[in-house]
């Protein structure tokens, strides 16, 4: 029991701290590395929620795929000139104020006049199947159409990315 709280504490501190590091680094490669750390921490949060399939998907897809893509592009466009320019835009104060306003709004909604989230308490029934089986059944029975649409989306994204990055031979 105590281990769960301890794990949650560590994971959330790592996730939030890495998030802050992502948006404040001068070197884009360092930002990518901190984002990888943040994604690991988020995967750990999934594991804490007994969503082990999602943890595996996060590591394989996000950390092992998307971040490698980011790293490739960052290395291709990482010019030294960019490292010496100003990193934050001129209206950074306005951006931070807007985010602070958003934070206040979120806190208000969540606290809800001091009651916290009024989620209906659910019975503590354990999942009868494993997590992977449950997700597999949901994906292929209830959510078959979104799966097909997602595959079409990925096809379009692949074709689009290849066309966008091709050199136009004159």
């Amino acid at each position, binding site marked *: 029991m105590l281990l769960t709280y301890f794990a949650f504490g560590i994971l959330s501190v790592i996730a939030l701290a890495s998030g802050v590091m992502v948006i404040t680094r001068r070197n884009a490669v360092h930002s990518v590395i901190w984002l990888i750390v943040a994604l690991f921490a988020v995967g750990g949060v999934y594991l804490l929620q007994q969503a082990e399939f999602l943890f595996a998907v996060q590591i394989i897809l996000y950390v092992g795929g998307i971040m490698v893509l980011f790293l490739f592009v960052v290395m291709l466009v990482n010019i030294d000139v960019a490292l010496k320019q100003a990193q934050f835009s001129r209206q950074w104060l306005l951006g931070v104020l807007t985010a602070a306003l958003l934070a206040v709004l979120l806190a208000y909604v969540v606290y809800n006049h001091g009651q916290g989230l009024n989620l209906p308490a659910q019975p503590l029934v354990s999942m009868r199947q494993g997590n992977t089986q449950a997700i597999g059944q949901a994906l292929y029975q209830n959510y078959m159409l979104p799966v097909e649409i*997602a595959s079409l989306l990925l096809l379009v994204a692949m074709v689009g990315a290849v066309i966008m990055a091709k050199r136009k031979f004159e």
Partner: protein
Amino acid sequence: MIPTDWYIFLGSGLFIIGVVGVLTRRNVLIILMSIELILNAVNINLVALSQHFRAVDGQVFAIFVITDAAAEAAVGLGLIIALFRNKETVNADEIDLLKW
């Protein structure tokens, strides 16, 4: 058992950090990375609520979010490469002409 509220706070915190990143940074790549942070914050919310209601639909939605993040990252990075080839910069402030 960790109260579900705590997970929602974590998700909101990560979301705010991502929003600050998108609004204040100049490097287009870091803006894209902040968007990934936002998507992950949303995923944390989805998984926490899915665990609360003992339904697997939240996790299925999270899988679709990850899939869409992959597609969007691919297309966005392709765009950045094309942009870099033409303008030699990834600074969002310097991409300010509608037609050149």
